[in-house]
């Protein structure tokens, strides 16, 4: 079983991202469980969403405290909250950032890190607004390319099925992000 955590800000689509990723894994025959941090959400405030993926039935129904993988939708969260709390040693971190992964020197030392400029990609595909792009679908494409846990095709299929509006643009963003993810050389070493 693999456990994942997605960090975002209220309004960025972290919860939807966890659902889409669950659907993508489900399409590949996995059992899945996704849920938001239980509580009250406010636009702009840090939010988290979670995902469990397993080949067999998932029995745990409690919170995820030690995830294997992190997806961070907003690079400023790295300063705002301890995004790596509980992350397993050598766990993976995918950051939405216009910087190369090496820019996050402290993270690179302990974890496998990749970055993708999902904001620019989402904005280029007209998702959300220029100042507040909706990055969740783009970053899932990058996650497929970075993690090798789920195929890009499954991610795109999940988007097509579950995103009610502008599915085509979202799929295009995911594909572009998959092609432009930057993986820290050290990450490949760890893998």
């Amino acid at each position, binding site marked *: 079983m693999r456990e994942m955590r997605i960090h975002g800000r209220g309004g960025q689509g972290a919860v939807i991202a966890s659902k889409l990723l669950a659907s993508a894994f489900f399409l590949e025959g996995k059992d899945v469980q996704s849920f*938001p941090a*239980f509580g009250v959400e406010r636009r702009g405030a840090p939010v988290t969403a979670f995902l469990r993926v397993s080949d067999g039935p998932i029995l*745990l129904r409690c919170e995820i405290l030690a995830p294997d993988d992190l997806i961070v939708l907003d690079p400023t969260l790295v300063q705002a909250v301890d995004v790596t709390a509980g992350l397993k040693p050598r766990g993976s971190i995918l950051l939405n950032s216009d910087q190369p992964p090496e820019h996050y020197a402290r993270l690179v030392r302990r974890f496998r890190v990749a970055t993708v400029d999902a904001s620019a990609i989402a904005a280029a595909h007209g998702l959300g607004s220029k100042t507040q792009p909706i990055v969740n679908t783009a970053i899932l494409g990058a996650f497929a390319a970075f993690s090798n846990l789920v195929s890009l095709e499954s991610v795109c299929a999940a988007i097509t099925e579950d995103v009610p509006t502008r599915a085509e643009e979202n799929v295009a963003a995911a594909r572009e992000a998959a092609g432009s993810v930057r993986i820290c050389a050290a990450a490949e070493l760890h893998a």
Partner: protein
Amino acid sequence: MKKVMVGNHAVSWGVKLARAEVIAAYPITPQTQIVEELAEMTADGRLAARFIKVESEHSAMAACIGAAATGVRAFTATSSQGLLLMHELLHWAGLGRLPIVMADINRAVAPGWSIWTDQNDTLAQRDTGWVQLYCETNQEVLDTTVQGFKLAETVDLPVMIVLDAFFLSHTSEPVDVPDQAEVDAFLPRREARLKLDVHDPHAFGALTTPAVYMELRLRQQEAFDRAREAFAAVDREWAERFGRGYGALESYRTEDAEIVLVTSGTITSTTRHVVNERRARGERIGLVKVKMFRPFPTGPLRDALSHVPAVAVLDRNISPGHGGIFAEEIRAALYDLPPGRRPRIDGYVVGLGGRDVTPAVIEDCLERTRRSQAEAAAAAANGGAEREIAREDIWVGVKP
């Protein structure tokens, strides 16, 4: 067709498949998604129902009572304070023998204001004359919702479908949505033989003298007695048609168990995980899941737990001044078993107000029971007094 969906939408889909005809509800976290989805289904024509917007949960239940009394299939959903506000009308539905189905998302009651799960809201409605069915997975939520209508209409009792806040309501997981035609075959249109009819007016719920009131209560009690068998039949038929059954009670790996954990709701899943790990280590640990709380499955519980040396009941609820409510009821149900077949029963209060019940918490309960059992066994071996059952339930996972 399998879809990944939240537990709230599993309820909505169950209601849609059951072709509810009247839906009246008032929004409350964490239930609102249920009726939002139903409102959309009603608005866009997927569900041919009348959606009645009301100004409170009290009114929602009143509307359902009126609708059900005219012979149609009625549904509502609520949670916590909303359910408490309905309390008076729950009795009206119960003694009125109206087969309303309601989903309640278990949410702790205030104060302090909480939107997180525990079972005190539904257990406070224990004596209102409603069947109560607790669910563990989103699949079970959908299935039980449809089953609930059939059970309700078979015995003329209202049925409450209960699921944990967030752990089910807001958690997405795969759910197999049955085919509408197959559900239609399982659950035909409601045929109410006793209903409000302007062409043959009768007074319902009018003044009832001491000469008959007690008999009415007896009829209700008889209906609850029949509901046990009726649910078994409904569940059997469901399993035949859809390949999934739940039972009022489920025994999980209890064969030759030395300790059996008893749970309800989503704690059950995590407990299965603990049981599997212990069994993998060769420990004789089992699990009993209680799905049906009213009518209380006394017979199946006695069958499942007699001969088990020790039982640990995990209660996500508290009856202040007494203890965990499932533990108390199970002790009462098993009390008159012969001494040799009567298990030692430890009660643990866990997970109130949404406190996470992790494998570690469950293992803590398990180890405490193992120790108390060992002490009791040692005392018995030394010719000590007849072992006593624990008088006070233990709070686990709580700061002193």
